[in-house]
C-alpha cells in the first residue's frame, strides 16, 4: 500500500527538499551574478502564485455547485493584466525608484512616507490575509486527511475543531510552512529586499501544480471518461447536473461582475502578488511576456475544472464526498495511487507557494512598517544607536511569520468547516480590494492626500470587518448566530449581511459595495477638501509623474549635509558592511568622488542612503532613522513647488521669456519713440538753421546795401552818410544780439550754459533794470508804474540771466506800449514761497492764438513780410528757458486791444537753507525742464556754495 502516512510524509518532505535545493542553487547563482530568475518566463511562472489551494481544490468545489461560477476569479485577472502594460509598469517603475519593499511601503511612501498609514495598511493586510492563510491550511490538512483515511472515504472527516491541537495535522502543517517560509524569506537582509531563491522555488511550484492538475484532468477526462463529450453527455442526463451548464447557479450577473472586479483588485494588491509582481521584479520588460503568459497559465489550469467537477459529481452522487476534495478522491477511488500522490503534491505546492510568499511579504510589512517605527520612536530603547539592527529585524520577521501562520491556524479552528475554500478566499480578496482607491488614486491623482487615504482605508476596513470578517466568525459559533440573523442587539438595520436594508446581494458583493462606497468616498472627499504636506506633495508628484523623470532628476528633500561616516554607520546597522561598501563605492564611482578625501555627504548622497535603507526597513522607517542622524533643514512649500512640479521649470522659463519679450517690446517702443524724437529734433535743427540763416541774412543784406551805397557814392552828403552809417551800426548791433541770442539758446539747450548762482534780491534787481532803461522810458514819453512789495525773500539764481529776462520783458513792454499815452507797469509780489513778477503794457495786445507762439523760436507776431522785424524772435524763448531753469514759469495774459501782461515766477530759495533745500529747489527746476536733467552737474553745488 503506497498511501501510508509515512510515505505521504516522506514524499512531502522530499518535495520540500527539492524546493530548498532549487532555492539554494538560485541564491548561489544570484550571488555569483548569474541570476536564474532574470527571465520573463520565470517571472510569469512566479506570478502564478495567484493559483493556490483555492484553485487546486476549491475551483472544482465551486464548479460542482455553481458551474461556471468559479471563472470570474480568473477572468478578472486576465482582463486586468491587459491594463498592466500601463498600470503595473508604472507601479514597478515607482517602486524601483523608491526601493519599495511591500504594498504598505508603497502606499505610505505615496502619502508622505507616513508611518501611521503604513501601519494601517499592514494591519489590514495581516487581518485580511488570515482567512486566506487558513484556507491553505485547510486545503493541505484536508488533503493529508483524505490521503490518510482514503480507505474510509465515505465516512465524514473529523471536524478540525474537535481534534486536540497536538493531534491536529494542520497544526503541524502550519509549523512546517512557517519553517519553510523563514528559511526562504528571511535568510539575510538585502538592500533591495529581493529573494531570488524564493522566486525560483515558487516558479518551480507553479510548474508542479499545473502539471499535476493537467494530469488529473486528463486522467478524469480521457481515462475515466471518454473525453469531454462523454462527461457532459452523462451530466446532461441529470436535470440537477445540467443546471450547471448555464448561469443558473452561477449567482446573479451583478455578483458575477463584482467578483470579476474583486479578482482584478486581488491580482494586483494581494500582498503576495505585489511581492512577486513588483518587489521581486528584476526587469520591467519582463512584464510584457507575463501579460499573456499568466492568463494562458490560468486558462490551462482551469480547462479541466469543469470536467473534474462534473466527473466527480457523476462518480459520487448525492454529495457523498466534499467536492473540494474531488482532485484527490477521484484517483483514490479508482485506485490510482500515483495520480493521487501527484495531486497531493500539486495541492501542497499550490498551498506552500501562497503561504510562503504571503508570510514573507507580511513579515516584511510587519517588521518594517509596524514594529520598527514603534521601536525607533521609543527613545529609552536607544535602538537607533545599536549596531547590527539587521539581526533584530530578522528576528522580528521570523516571529511575524510564525505569528501569521498561527493566526491562520486559529481562524481555521474557529471557522472550521463552515465555509467552502472559495468563500473563505473571497473574504481576503475583499480585504485587499480596500487598497485599490489609495493606490490607483496615488499613481494617477496628485491631489489624493494622506488624510483621505487614512480615512478611506480605515472606513473600508471597518465596513469589511463588520460585513464579512465578523460574520464569518459568527457562523462558526464564535459570536452568537443572532448577530447575523437579526443584527447586533436586534437592530435589523445593522444586520451585517443586509446593512441598511440592502438585501438580495451575495455577502461578498454586499460587503464590497458598502466598503468601497465609504473607502472611495472618504478618500476622495477628504483629498478634495484637505491639504497636502510638503513631503506628500513631493511624493505625489514623483509617483504620478514617474515616467517623466530620470533618476538624475532627483527630488532633493534633504537639504542638509552630513558626513559619510555617519551615513555609513547607519547603513551598517542593517546591511552587511561589504554590501554597504559596494553601494557607497558604486555611488562614488558614478559621481567621481573619493571617500578617503570627501567626507561631506550632500543631499544627493543622503537621498541615496535613504533609498538604500528603505530597501531594508521600508521608507517610513528609513526616514525616521535618517532624520535622527541628519539635521534636516525645513524645506518651504514654495521651494518644493518650485523643485517638484515638473512643469514649474517650463513655466518659469516661459515666464522669463514672456518678461524678456515684454522688455524687448518696451525697449523697441522706447527706441522708436527716441528715434521719432531724434527725427523731430533733426527737423527742428534744420528749421532752426534755416531760420537763423534767414534772420542773419536780413541785417547782413541791409548792412551790405548801405555799405555799397556809401562805397559807390563817396560824394554823399554828410547827413545822408551819417544816417546810413547809423543804420549800418544798428543792423550790426542787431546782428550781434541775434548771434548772442542764438549762442545763448544753444548753450541752454545743450546744457553748456554756465550758471553763476548767487542769492538774488528780485526787488533790487528790478530796480536796477528799470534804472538802466530810465533814459529810454523818458525818451519814449512813457509813464512808468511800479507796484512792488517793500521787501521780498531772496532767491538763488544767476543774477545776470534774470536781469536779462527782466530787461527783455521791459524792452518789449516799452517797444509795444501805446505810442501816444504809453505806460508800463511792473509788479512784484511774494505768495506761497513764490515770487511773482508782472510786466504790463497798454499796447495792442496779443491774440489768444498767438499767446503761446510768441514763446517759440523765431516766431514774431505780426506780418513779417510788411513790417520790419523789431526783434530777433529769440528773446522770449530764451527768457522762458531761463525762468523754467530756475523752477519758475513765464506766461502771458492779454486781451486784444488792452495791452499785455507778462508774468514770471521764481521760487523762494533762501541761501541760508541747508543744501538739500537748495538742491530740492533746483531739482524741481531740473525736472520741470526735462531736457535739462543733465545740467545739474554743470552748475553743481560749487556754484551754490560760492
Amino acid at each position, binding site marked *: 500500500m503506497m498511501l501510508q502516512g509515512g510515505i505521504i510524509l516522506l514524499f512531502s518532505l522530499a518535495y520540500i527538499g527539492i524546493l530548498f535545493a532549487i532555492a539554494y542553487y538560485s541564491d548561489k547563482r544570484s550571488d555569483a551574478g548569474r541570476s536564474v530568475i532574470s527571465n520573463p518566463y520565470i517571472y510569469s511562472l512566479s506570478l502564478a502564485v495567484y493559483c493556490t489551494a483555492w484553485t487546486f481544490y476549491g475551483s472544482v468545489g465551486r464548479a460542482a455547485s455553481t458551474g461556471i461560477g468559479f471563472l470570474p476569479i480568473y477572468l478578472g485577472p486576465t482582463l486586468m493584466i491587459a491594463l498592466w*502594460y500601463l498600470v503595473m509598469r508604472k507601479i514597478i517603475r515607482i517602486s524601483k525608484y523608491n526601493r519599495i519593499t511591500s504594498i504598505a511601503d508603497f502606499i505610505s511612501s505615496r502619502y508622505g512616507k507616513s508611518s501611521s498609514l503604513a501601519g494601517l495598511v499592514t494591519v489590514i493586510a495581516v487581518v485580511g490575509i488570515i482567512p486566506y492563510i487558513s484556507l491553505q491550511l485547510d486545503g493541505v490538512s484536508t488533503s493529508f486527511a483524505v490521503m490518510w483515511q482514503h480507505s474510509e472515504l465515505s465516512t465524514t472527516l473529523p471536524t478540525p475543531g474537535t481534534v486536540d491541537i497536538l493531534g491536529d495535522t494542520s497544526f503541524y502543517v502550519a509549523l512546517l510552512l512557517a519553517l519553510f517560509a523563514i528559511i526562504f524569506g528571511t535568510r539575510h537582509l538585502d538592500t533591495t529586499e529581493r529573494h531570488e531563491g524564493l522566486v525560483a522555488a515558487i516558479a518551480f511550484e507553479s510548474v508542479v501544480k499545473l502539471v499535476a492538475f493537467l494530469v488529473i484532468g486528463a486522467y478524469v477526462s480521457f481515462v475515466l471518461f471518454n473525453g469531454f*463529450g462523454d462527461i457532459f453527455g452523462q451530466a446532461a442526463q441529470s436535470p440537477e447536473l445540467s443546471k450547471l451548464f*448555464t448561469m443558473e447557479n452561477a449567482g446573479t450577473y451583478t455578483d458575477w*461582475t463584482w467578483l*470579476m472586479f474583486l479578482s482584478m483588485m486581488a491580482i494586483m494588491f494581494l500582498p503576495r502578488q505585489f511581492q512577486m509582481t513588483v518587489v521581486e521584479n528584476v526587469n520591467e520588460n519582463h512584464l*510584457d511576456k507575463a501579460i499573456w503568459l499568466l492568463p494562458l497559465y490560468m*486558462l490551462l489550469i482551469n480547462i479541466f475544472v469543469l470536467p473534474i467537477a462534473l466527473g466527480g459529481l457523476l462518480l459520487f452522487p448525492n454529495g457523498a464526498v466534499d467536492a473540494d476534495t474531488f482532485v484527490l478522491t477521484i484517483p483514490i477511488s479508482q485506485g490510482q495511487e500515483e495520480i493521487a500522490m501527484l495531486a497531493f503534491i500539486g495541492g501542497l505546492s499550490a498551498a506552500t507557494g501562497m503561504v510562503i510568499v504571503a508570510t514573507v511579504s507580511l513579515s516584511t510589512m510587519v517588521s518594517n512598517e509596524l514594529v520598527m517605527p514603534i521601536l525607533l520612536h521609543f527613545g529609552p530603547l536607544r535602538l537607533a544607536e545599536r549596531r547590527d539592527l539587521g539581526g533584530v529585524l530578522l528576528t522580528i520577521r521570523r516571529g511575524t511569520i510564525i505569528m501569521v501562520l498561527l493566526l491562520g491556524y486559529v481562524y481555521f479552528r474557529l471557522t472550521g468547516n463552515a465555509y467552502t475554500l472559495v468563500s473563505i478566499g473571497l473574504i481576503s480578496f475583499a480585504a485587499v480590494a480596500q487598497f485599490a482607491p489609495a493606490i490607483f488614486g496615488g499613481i494617477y491623482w496628485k491631489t489624493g492626500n494622506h488624510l483621505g487615504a487614512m480615512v478611506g482605508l480605515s472606513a473600508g476596513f471597518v465596513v469589511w470587518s463588520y460585513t464579512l470578517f465578523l460574520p464569518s466568525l459568527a457562523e462558526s459559533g464564535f459570536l452568537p448566530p443572532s448577530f447575523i440573523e437579526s443584527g447586533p442587539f436586534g437592530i435589523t438595520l445593522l444586520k451585517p449581511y443586509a446593512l441598511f436594508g440592502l438585501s438580495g446581494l451575495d455577502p461578498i458583493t454586499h460587503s464590497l459595495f458598502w466598503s468601497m462606497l465609504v473607502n472611495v468616498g472618504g478618500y476622495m472627499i477628504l483629498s478634495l477638501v484637505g491639504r497636502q504636506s510638503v513631503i506628500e506633495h513631493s511624493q505625489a508628484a514623483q509617483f504620478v509623474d514617474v515616467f517623466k523623470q530620470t533618476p538624475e532628476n532627483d527630488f532633493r528633500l534633504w537639504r542638509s549635509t552630513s558626513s559619510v561616516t555617519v551615513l555609513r554607520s547607519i547603513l551598517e546597522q542593517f546591511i552587511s558592511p561589504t554590501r554597504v561598501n559596494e553601494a557607497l563605492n558604486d555611488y562614488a564611482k558614478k559621481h567621481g568622488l573619493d571617500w578617503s578625501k570627501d567626507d561631506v555627504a550632500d543631499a544627493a548622497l543622503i537621498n541615496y542612503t535613504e533609498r538604500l535603507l528603505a530597501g531594508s526597513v521600508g521608507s517610513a522607517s528609513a526616514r525616521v532613522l535618517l532624520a535622527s542622524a541628519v539635521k534636516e533643514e525645513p524645506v518651504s512649500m514654495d521651494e518644493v513647488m518650485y523643485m517638484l512640479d515638473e512643469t514649474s521649470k517650463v513655466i518659469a522659463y516661459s515666464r522669463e521669456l514672456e518678461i524678456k519679450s515684454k522688455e524687448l517690446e518696451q525697449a523697441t517702443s522706447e527706441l522708436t519713440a527716441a528715434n521719432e524724437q531724434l527725427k523731430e529734433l533733426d527737423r527742428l535743427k534744420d528749421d532752426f538753421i534755416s531760420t537763423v540763416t534767414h534772420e542773419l541774412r536780413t541785417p547782413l543784406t541791409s548792412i551790405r546795401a548801405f555799405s555799397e551805397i556809401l562805397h559807390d557814392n563817396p560824394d554823399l552828403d554828410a547827413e545822408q552818410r551819417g544816417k546810413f552809417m547809423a543804420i549800418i551800426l544798428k543792423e550790426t548791433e542787431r546782428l550781434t544780439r541775434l548771434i548772442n541770442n542764438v549762442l545763448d539758446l544753444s548753450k541752454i539747450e545743450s546744457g553748456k550754459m554756465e550758471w553763476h548762482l548767487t542769492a538774488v534780491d528780485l526787488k533790487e534787481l528790478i530796480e536796477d533794470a528799470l534804472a538802466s532803461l530810465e533814459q529810454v522810458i523818458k525818451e519814449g514819453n512813457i509813464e512808468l508804474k511800479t507796484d512792488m512789495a517793500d521787501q521780498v525773500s531772496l532767491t538763488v539764481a544767476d543774477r545776470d540771466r534774470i536781469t536779462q529776462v527782466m530787461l527783455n520783458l521791459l524792452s518789449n513792454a516799452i517797444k509795444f506800449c501805446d505810442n501816444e499815452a504809453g505806460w508800463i507797469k511792473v509788479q512784484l509780489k511774494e505768495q506761497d514761497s513764490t515770487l511773482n513778477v508782472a510786466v504790463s503794457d497798454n499796447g495792442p495786445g496779443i491774440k489768444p492764438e498767438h499767446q503761446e507762439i510768441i514763446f517759440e523760436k523765431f516766431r514774431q507776431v505780426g506780418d513779417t513780410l510788411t513790417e520790419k522785424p523789431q526783434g530777433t524772435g529769440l528773446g522770449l524763448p530764451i527768457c522762458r528757458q531761463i525762468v523754467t531753469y530756475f523752477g519758475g514759469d513765464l506766461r502771458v495774459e492779454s486781451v486784444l486791444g488792452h495791452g499785455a501782461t507778462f508774468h514770471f515766477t521764481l521760487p523762494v530759495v533762501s541761501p541760508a537753507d541747508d543744501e538739500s533745500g537748495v538742491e530740492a529747489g533746483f531739482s524741481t527746476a531740473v525736472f520741470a525742464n526735462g531736457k535739462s536733467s543733465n545740467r545739474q552737474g554743470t552748475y553743481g553745488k560749487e556754484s551754490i556754495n560760492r
Partner: protein
Amino acid sequence: MNRFTIIGQRLVAIFLLGCLLFNYPLLSIFSTYDMLWGIPILYVYAFSSWLIIIILMIIVIEIRR
C-alpha cells in the same frame, strides 16, 4: 514612447472587449442547455473568448516588436 502608448491603448481596447464578452448581457445569450461538439455552449463560449483574448494579447505584444 509611441510604441509604448499604442500598445498600451490596444491592450486597453482588449480589456474593454473582455469586459464586454464576460458580462451581462452577452453572457446570458449563451446561458442555454445547447451543446456544441458535446460541450455546453456556455463553456465553449467562455473558454474560447478567453483564448481569443489571450491570442489578441500575444499579437499585440509579441508580433509588432
